[in-house]
Protein backbone atom coordinates (compact mmCIF):
# COMPACT_ATOMS: atom_id res chain seq x y z
CA UNK A 1 0.00 0.00 0.00
CA UNK A 2 1.51 3.29 -1.08
CA UNK A 3 0.22 6.11 1.07
CA UNK A 4 0.74 9.59 -0.32
CA UNK A 5 -1.61 11.77 1.75
CA UNK A 6 -0.96 11.95 5.49
CA UNK A 7 -2.58 13.80 8.40
CA UNK A 8 -1.05 17.20 9.16
CA UNK A 9 1.74 17.45 11.73
CA UNK A 10 -0.64 19.40 13.96
CA UNK A 11 -3.14 16.52 13.87
CA UNK A 12 -0.45 13.96 14.60
CA UNK A 13 0.61 16.04 17.61
CA UNK A 14 -2.92 16.21 18.94
CA UNK A 15 -3.12 12.44 18.51
CA UNK A 16 0.15 11.91 20.37
CA UNK A 17 -1.19 14.16 23.14
CA UNK A 18 -4.38 12.11 23.36
CA UNK A 19 -6.34 15.32 22.80
CA UNK A 20 -8.25 14.65 19.60
CA UNK A 21 -12.04 14.54 19.68
CA UNK A 22 -13.01 10.87 19.63
CA UNK A 23 -14.22 10.77 16.01
CA UNK A 24 -10.85 12.08 14.84
CA UNK A 25 -8.92 9.78 17.16
CA UNK A 26 -10.70 6.86 15.49
CA UNK A 27 -9.74 7.99 11.97
CA UNK A 28 -6.21 8.71 13.11
CA UNK A 29 -5.78 5.35 14.87
CA UNK A 30 -6.98 3.61 11.70
CA UNK A 31 -4.54 5.51 9.51
CA UNK A 32 -1.68 4.82 11.92
CA UNK A 33 -2.42 1.11 11.73
CA UNK A 34 -1.86 1.37 7.96
CA UNK A 35 1.04 3.85 7.89
CA UNK A 36 4.56 3.06 9.20
CA UNK A 37 5.66 6.58 8.27
CA UNK A 38 3.19 8.24 10.66
CA UNK A 39 4.04 5.70 13.37
CA UNK A 40 7.62 6.94 13.12
CA UNK A 41 6.51 10.59 13.38
CA UNK A 42 4.34 9.78 16.39
CA UNK A 43 7.20 8.12 18.19
CA UNK A 44 9.22 11.35 17.86
CA UNK A 45 6.23 13.37 19.03
CA UNK A 46 5.78 11.16 22.07
CA UNK A 47 9.05 12.60 23.39
CA UNK A 48 7.36 16.00 23.56
CA UNK A 49 4.65 14.66 25.86
CA UNK A 50 7.21 12.83 27.94
CA UNK A 51 9.37 15.95 28.31
CA UNK A 52 6.43 18.09 29.41
CA UNK A 53 5.14 15.38 31.77
CA UNK A 54 8.63 15.02 33.23
CA UNK A 55 8.74 18.73 34.03
CA UNK A 56 5.35 18.96 35.73
CA UNK A 57 5.71 20.02 39.35
CA UNK A 58 4.60 16.88 41.28
CA UNK A 59 1.59 16.98 43.58
CA UNK A 60 2.18 15.04 46.81
CA UNK A 61 0.01 11.94 47.12
CA UNK A 62 -1.76 11.26 50.41
CA UNK A 63 -2.16 7.50 50.09
CA UNK A 64 0.66 4.94 50.06
CA UNK A 65 1.50 2.64 47.18
CA UNK A 66 -1.36 0.14 46.81
CA UNK A 67 0.81 -2.94 47.42
CA UNK A 68 -2.05 -4.96 48.90
CA UNK A 69 -3.91 -4.72 45.61
CA UNK A 70 -0.97 -6.13 43.66
CA UNK A 71 -1.36 -9.69 44.86
CA UNK A 72 -4.91 -9.88 43.61
CA UNK A 73 -3.93 -8.86 40.10
CA UNK A 74 -3.06 -11.07 37.22
CA UNK A 75 -0.33 -9.82 34.98
CA UNK A 76 -1.06 -9.19 31.34
CA UNK A 77 1.15 -11.34 29.19
CA UNK A 78 2.22 -10.45 25.69
CA UNK A 79 0.00 -12.36 23.30
CA UNK A 80 2.37 -12.60 20.37
CA UNK A 81 5.80 -11.61 21.59
CA UNK A 82 6.56 -8.25 23.17
CA UNK A 83 5.32 -6.16 20.27
CA UNK A 84 1.93 -6.80 18.83
CA UNK A 85 1.96 -5.82 15.23
CA UNK A 86 -0.42 -3.07 14.28
CA UNK A 87 -1.99 -3.60 10.95
CA UNK A 88 -4.93 -4.28 8.78
CA UNK A 89 -7.05 -7.38 8.58
CA UNK A 90 -8.77 -7.49 5.20
CA UNK A 91 -9.64 -3.86 4.52
CA UNK A 92 -10.74 -3.01 8.05
CA UNK A 93 -7.91 -1.45 10.08
CA UNK A 94 -7.38 -3.10 13.49
CA UNK A 95 -8.80 -0.26 15.60
CA UNK A 96 -12.11 -0.46 13.71
CA UNK A 97 -12.58 -4.20 14.00
CA UNK A 98 -14.23 -3.80 17.41
CA UNK A 99 -16.97 -1.63 15.91
CA UNK A 100 -17.21 -2.99 12.35
CA UNK A 101 -16.08 -6.59 12.37
CA UNK A 102 -13.49 -7.73 9.87
CA UNK A 103 -15.17 -7.05 6.53
CA UNK A 104 -16.52 -3.91 4.89
CA UNK A 105 -18.93 -6.15 2.98
CA UNK A 106 -20.78 -6.97 6.20
CA UNK A 107 -21.50 -3.35 7.13
CA UNK A 108 -25.27 -2.70 7.42
CA UNK A 109 -25.29 0.16 4.91
CA UNK A 110 -28.12 2.61 4.80
CA UNK A 111 -28.82 4.22 1.45
CA UNK A 112 -28.90 8.00 1.90
CA UNK A 113 -29.08 9.23 -1.66
CA UNK A 114 -28.35 8.26 -5.26
CA UNK A 115 -25.11 6.25 -5.22
CA UNK A 116 -24.34 7.10 -1.59
CA UNK A 117 -24.59 4.80 1.44
CA UNK A 118 -23.78 5.60 5.03
CA UNK A 119 -23.16 3.75 8.28
CA UNK A 120 -23.00 5.75 11.47
CA UNK A 121 -20.55 4.71 14.19
CA UNK A 122 -21.80 5.62 17.65
CA UNK A 123 -19.43 7.68 19.77
CA UNK A 124 -19.25 7.95 23.55
CA UNK A 125 -20.40 11.57 23.29
CA UNK A 126 -22.09 12.25 19.93
CA UNK A 127 -22.28 15.99 20.65
CA UNK A 128 -18.52 16.34 20.13
CA UNK A 129 -18.47 15.06 16.57
CA UNK A 130 -19.66 12.59 14.03
CA UNK A 131 -18.01 9.41 12.77
CA UNK A 132 -19.36 7.45 9.84
CA UNK A 133 -18.50 5.22 6.94
CA UNK A 134 -19.55 6.46 3.53
CA UNK A 135 -19.78 4.27 0.46
CA UNK A 136 -19.88 6.05 -2.88
CA UNK A 137 -20.79 4.34 -6.13
CA UNK A 138 -18.24 4.33 -9.00
CA UNK A 139 -18.03 7.74 -10.65
CA UNK A 140 -20.48 9.33 -8.22
CA UNK A 141 -19.89 13.02 -7.47
CA UNK A 142 -20.38 14.23 -3.90
CA UNK A 143 -21.89 17.73 -3.83
CA UNK A 144 -19.46 20.63 -3.44
CA UNK A 145 -19.20 21.40 0.25
CA UNK A 146 -17.21 23.27 2.86
CA UNK A 147 -16.94 22.67 6.60
CA UNK A 148 -17.84 24.50 9.77
CA UNK A 149 -15.07 22.67 11.59
CA UNK A 150 -12.40 20.12 10.83
CA UNK A 151 -13.06 17.08 8.68
CA UNK A 152 -10.80 14.06 8.39
CA UNK A 153 -11.35 11.36 5.78
CA UNK A 154 -9.55 8.03 5.48
CA UNK A 155 -10.00 5.93 2.35
CA UNK A 156 -10.52 2.26 3.22
CA UNK A 157 -11.31 0.83 -0.21
CA UNK A 158 -11.23 2.17 -3.76
CA UNK A 159 -10.32 5.81 -4.32
CA UNK A 160 -11.68 9.28 -4.85
CA UNK A 161 -10.26 12.43 -6.36
CA UNK A 162 -10.79 16.13 -5.92
CA UNK A 163 -8.87 19.28 -6.82
CA UNK A 164 -6.08 18.35 -4.39
CA UNK A 165 -5.34 14.96 -5.90
CA UNK A 166 -6.21 11.27 -5.84
CA UNK A 167 -6.86 9.55 -2.51
CA UNK A 168 -6.41 5.78 -2.34
CA UNK A 169 -6.72 3.24 0.45
CA UNK A 170 -4.73 4.44 3.46
CA UNK A 171 -4.67 8.09 2.35
CA UNK A 172 -6.03 10.77 4.66
CA UNK A 173 -7.58 14.10 3.72
CA UNK A 174 -7.08 16.32 6.75
CA UNK A 175 -9.21 19.36 5.95
CA UNK A 176 -9.81 22.49 7.93
CA UNK A 177 -12.84 24.72 8.03
CA UNK A 178 -11.91 26.86 5.03
CA UNK A 179 -11.53 24.12 2.47
CA UNK A 180 -14.28 23.41 -0.03
CA UNK A 181 -14.11 20.38 -2.23
CA UNK A 182 -16.10 18.22 -4.59
CA UNK A 183 -14.90 14.63 -4.43
CA UNK A 184 -15.57 12.13 -7.22
CA UNK A 185 -15.41 8.41 -6.52
CA UNK A 186 -13.15 6.19 -8.62
CA UNK A 187 -14.99 5.28 -11.88
CA UNK A 188 -14.29 1.57 -11.47
CA UNK A 189 -14.01 0.73 -7.77
CA UNK A 190 -16.03 3.50 -6.16
CA UNK A 191 -14.93 4.42 -2.68
CA UNK A 192 -15.45 3.54 0.96
CA UNK A 193 -14.24 6.14 3.44
CA UNK A 194 -14.21 6.70 7.16
CA UNK A 195 -15.11 10.31 7.89
CA UNK A 196 -14.85 12.32 11.11
CA UNK A 197 -16.55 15.69 11.19
CA UNK A 198 -16.41 18.29 13.91
CA UNK A 199 -19.10 20.61 12.66
CA UNK A 200 -21.81 19.86 10.11
CA UNK A 201 -20.77 20.24 6.50
CA UNK A 202 -22.11 23.22 4.59
CA UNK A 203 -23.07 22.67 0.99
CA UNK A 204 -22.70 25.44 -1.54
CA UNK A 205 -25.64 24.92 -3.83
CA UNK A 206 -29.26 25.09 -2.83
CA UNK A 207 -29.89 21.64 -4.27
CA UNK A 208 -27.07 20.19 -2.21
CA UNK A 209 -28.50 21.90 0.89
CA UNK A 210 -31.81 20.26 0.15
CA UNK A 211 -30.11 16.90 -0.18
CA UNK A 212 -28.15 17.34 3.05
CA UNK A 213 -30.84 16.11 5.43
CA UNK A 214 -30.99 12.88 3.44
CA UNK A 215 -27.30 12.27 3.04
CA UNK A 216 -26.75 13.17 6.68
CA UNK A 217 -23.28 14.55 6.09
Amino acid at each position, binding site marked *: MKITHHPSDASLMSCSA*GSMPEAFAAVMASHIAMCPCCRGTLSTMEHIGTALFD*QLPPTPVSRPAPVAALRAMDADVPSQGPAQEAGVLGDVPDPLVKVLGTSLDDVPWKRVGPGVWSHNITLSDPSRGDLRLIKIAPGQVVPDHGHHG*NEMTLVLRGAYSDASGVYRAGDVADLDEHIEHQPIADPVEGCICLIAVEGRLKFKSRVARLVQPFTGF
Partner: protein
Amino acid sequence: MIPIVLNAPPDGRGLNAPGPLSMAEFLQRIAERGDVEAFRKLFQAYAPRVKAYMMRQGADANTAEELAQETLLTVWRKAGLYSGEKGSATTWIFTIARNLRIDRLRRELTWVELPDGHNEEASSDALPDEILAEQERKLRVQAALATLPPDQLEVVSLSYIEGLSHSEIADRLGLPLGTVKSRMRLAYHKVRESVEDLK
Protein backbone atom coordinates in the same frame (compact mmCIF):
# COMPACT_ATOMS: atom_id res chain seq x y z
CA MET B 1 16.51 4.37 46.96
CA ILE B 2 16.41 6.56 43.90
CA PRO B 3 16.56 10.25 44.73
CA ILE B 4 13.36 11.77 43.51
CA VAL B 5 13.88 15.03 41.69
CA LEU B 6 11.03 17.23 42.79
CA ASN B 7 11.32 19.85 40.14
CA ALA B 8 13.02 18.63 37.06
CA PRO B 9 15.68 21.16 36.10
CA PRO B 10 15.56 22.42 32.54
CA ASP B 11 18.60 20.32 31.70
CA GLY B 12 16.11 17.55 32.07
CA ARG B 13 17.43 14.67 34.15
CA GLY B 14 13.97 14.51 35.65
CA LEU B 15 12.46 11.23 36.71
CA ASN B 16 15.10 9.05 35.21
CA ALA B 17 17.88 10.45 37.38
CA PRO B 18 20.46 9.26 38.20
CA GLY B 19 20.71 6.96 35.22
CA PRO B 20 18.55 6.29 32.20
CA LEU B 21 18.24 2.62 33.09
CA SER B 22 16.97 2.77 36.65
CA MET B 23 13.26 3.11 36.05
CA ALA B 24 13.40 0.66 33.16
CA GLU B 25 15.17 -1.79 35.48
CA PHE B 26 12.46 -1.47 38.08
CA LEU B 27 9.92 -2.25 35.38
CA GLN B 28 11.92 -5.27 34.37
CA ARG B 29 12.06 -6.52 37.97
CA ILE B 30 8.30 -6.19 38.24
CA ALA B 31 7.87 -8.10 34.99
CA GLU B 32 10.32 -10.87 35.87
CA ARG B 33 9.64 -11.53 39.52
CA GLY B 34 6.75 -9.36 40.69
CA ASP B 35 9.13 -7.24 42.78
CA VAL B 36 6.99 -5.23 45.24
CA GLU B 37 9.90 -3.02 46.31
CA ALA B 38 10.51 -2.03 42.70
CA PHE B 39 6.82 -1.16 42.48
CA ARG B 40 7.10 1.08 45.56
CA LYS B 41 10.01 2.92 43.98
CA LEU B 42 8.13 3.47 40.75
CA PHE B 43 5.09 4.61 42.69
CA GLN B 44 7.11 7.14 44.69
CA ALA B 45 8.71 8.47 41.55
CA TYR B 46 5.68 8.65 39.30
CA ALA B 47 2.46 8.83 41.31
CA PRO B 48 2.91 12.51 42.32
CA ARG B 49 3.51 13.49 38.71
CA VAL B 50 0.60 11.45 37.40
CA LYS B 51 -1.58 13.10 40.04
CA ALA B 52 -0.38 16.54 38.93
CA TYR B 53 -1.10 15.60 35.30
CA MET B 54 -4.64 14.42 36.11
CA MET B 55 -5.36 17.64 38.00
CA ARG B 56 -4.19 19.68 35.00
CA GLN B 57 -6.59 17.58 32.92
CA GLY B 58 -9.42 18.79 35.11
CA ALA B 59 -9.69 16.07 37.79
CA ASP B 60 -10.24 17.09 41.43
CA ALA B 61 -7.51 16.11 43.92
CA ASN B 62 -9.31 12.96 45.06
CA THR B 63 -10.05 11.68 41.55
CA ALA B 64 -6.50 12.54 40.47
CA GLU B 65 -5.13 10.50 43.36
CA GLU B 66 -7.30 7.53 42.43
CA LEU B 67 -6.20 7.78 38.81
CA ALA B 68 -2.55 7.94 39.90
CA GLN B 69 -3.07 4.74 41.90
CA GLU B 70 -4.81 3.11 38.98
CA THR B 71 -2.11 4.19 36.53
CA LEU B 72 0.60 2.58 38.66
CA LEU B 73 -1.48 -0.56 39.16
CA THR B 74 -1.80 -0.75 35.37
CA VAL B 75 1.98 -0.39 35.16
CA TRP B 76 2.29 -3.40 37.48
CA ARG B 77 -0.17 -5.42 35.45
CA LYS B 78 1.32 -4.52 32.08
CA ALA B 79 5.00 -4.51 33.03
CA GLY B 80 5.49 -7.68 30.96
CA LEU B 81 4.46 -5.73 27.87
CA TYR B 82 7.08 -3.02 28.36
CA SER B 83 10.04 -3.35 26.09
CA GLY B 84 12.94 -0.99 26.66
CA GLU B 85 13.78 -0.37 23.04
CA LYS B 86 10.36 1.12 22.35
CA GLY B 87 11.02 4.18 24.47
CA SER B 88 11.82 5.32 27.96
CA ALA B 89 9.94 4.08 31.02
CA THR B 90 8.60 7.60 31.47
CA THR B 91 7.17 7.65 27.95
CA TRP B 92 5.49 4.32 28.56
CA ILE B 93 4.02 5.30 31.94
CA PHE B 94 2.90 8.67 30.60
CA THR B 95 1.08 6.88 27.78
CA ILE B 96 -0.72 4.64 30.27
CA ALA B 97 -1.77 7.75 32.23
CA ARG B 98 -2.88 9.45 29.02
CA ASN B 99 -5.02 6.50 27.96
CA LEU B 100 -6.55 6.18 31.43
CA ARG B 101 -7.40 9.86 31.32
CA ILE B 102 -9.23 9.46 27.99
CA ASP B 103 -11.10 6.47 29.38
CA ARG B 104 -12.02 7.89 32.79
CA LEU B 105 -12.08 11.67 32.53
CA ARG B 106 -13.51 11.89 29.03
CA ARG B 107 -15.29 8.53 29.12
CA GLU B 108 -14.34 7.80 25.55
CA LEU B 109 -12.91 4.79 23.81
CA THR B 110 -9.14 4.84 23.66
CA TRP B 111 -8.51 4.44 19.96
CA VAL B 112 -4.77 4.93 19.93
CA GLU B 113 -3.13 2.17 21.94
CA LEU B 114 0.11 2.09 23.91
CA PRO B 115 3.29 2.77 21.94
CA ASP B 116 4.25 -0.90 22.25
CA GLY B 117 1.14 -1.66 20.21
CA HIS B 118 2.76 -0.01 17.21
CA ASN B 119 5.25 -1.63 14.95
CA GLU B 120 7.56 1.32 14.55
CA GLU B 121 9.77 1.58 11.51
CA ALA B 122 12.99 1.85 13.43
CA SER B 123 12.47 -1.10 15.73
CA SER B 124 15.61 -3.05 16.47
CA ASP B 125 17.30 -4.61 19.47
CA ALA B 126 18.05 -2.32 22.39
CA LEU B 127 21.73 -1.81 21.75
CA PRO B 128 23.68 0.16 24.37
CA ASP B 129 24.09 2.87 21.74
CA GLU B 130 20.38 3.09 21.42
CA ILE B 131 19.84 3.50 25.15
CA LEU B 132 22.33 6.38 25.11
CA ALA B 133 20.62 7.83 22.06
CA GLU B 134 17.30 7.62 23.93
CA GLN B 135 18.71 9.68 26.80
CA GLU B 136 20.33 12.12 24.39
CA ARG B 137 17.05 12.47 22.50
CA LYS B 138 15.21 13.29 25.68
CA LEU B 139 17.70 16.00 26.64
CA ARG B 140 17.53 17.54 23.20
CA VAL B 141 13.72 17.53 23.11
CA GLN B 142 13.67 19.28 26.47
CA ALA B 143 16.23 21.80 25.27
CA ALA B 144 14.25 22.44 22.08
CA LEU B 145 11.03 22.95 24.07
CA ALA B 146 12.84 25.37 26.37
CA THR B 147 13.76 27.57 23.39
CA LEU B 148 10.29 27.66 21.81
CA PRO B 149 8.59 31.04 21.54
CA PRO B 150 6.10 31.27 24.44
CA ASP B 151 3.07 31.28 22.12
CA GLN B 152 4.16 27.95 20.61
CA LEU B 153 4.98 26.35 23.96
CA GLU B 154 1.58 27.48 25.22
CA VAL B 155 -0.42 25.62 22.55
CA VAL B 156 1.78 22.54 22.90
CA SER B 157 1.24 22.48 26.69
CA LEU B 158 -2.50 23.02 26.34
CA SER B 159 -2.61 20.05 23.99
CA TYR B 160 -0.34 17.63 25.87
CA ILE B 161 -0.86 18.59 29.49
CA GLU B 162 -4.37 20.05 29.62
CA GLY B 163 -5.75 17.68 27.00
CA LEU B 164 -7.47 20.34 24.86
CA SER B 165 -8.31 19.72 21.20
CA HIS B 166 -7.22 22.25 18.59
CA SER B 167 -10.69 23.79 18.52
CA GLU B 168 -10.76 24.04 22.32
CA ILE B 169 -7.34 25.72 22.30
CA ALA B 170 -8.57 28.16 19.63
CA ASP B 171 -11.59 28.99 21.82
CA ARG B 172 -9.53 29.30 24.99
CA LEU B 173 -6.97 31.66 23.44
CA GLY B 174 -9.35 33.46 21.09
CA LEU B 175 -7.26 32.46 18.06
CA PRO B 176 -8.22 31.20 14.60
CA LEU B 177 -7.97 27.40 14.36
CA GLY B 178 -5.33 27.77 11.63
CA THR B 179 -3.08 29.76 13.97
CA VAL B 180 -3.26 27.04 16.62
CA LYS B 181 -2.34 24.40 14.04
CA SER B 182 0.53 26.39 12.59
CA ARG B 183 2.00 27.01 16.06
CA MET B 184 1.79 23.29 16.78
CA ARG B 185 3.49 22.52 13.49
CA LEU B 186 6.30 25.05 14.02
CA ALA B 187 6.95 23.68 17.51
CA TYR B 188 7.16 20.15 16.18
CA HIS B 189 9.55 21.14 13.41
CA LYS B 190 11.89 22.68 15.93
CA VAL B 191 11.81 19.54 18.08
CA ARG B 192 12.31 17.31 15.05
CA GLU B 193 15.32 19.33 13.87
CA SER B 194 16.92 18.92 17.27
CA VAL B 195 16.84 15.12 17.11
CA GLU B 196 17.16 14.56 13.36
CA ASP B 197 20.75 13.31 13.41
CA LEU B 198 19.92 10.73 16.11
CA LYS B 199 17.74 8.68 13.82
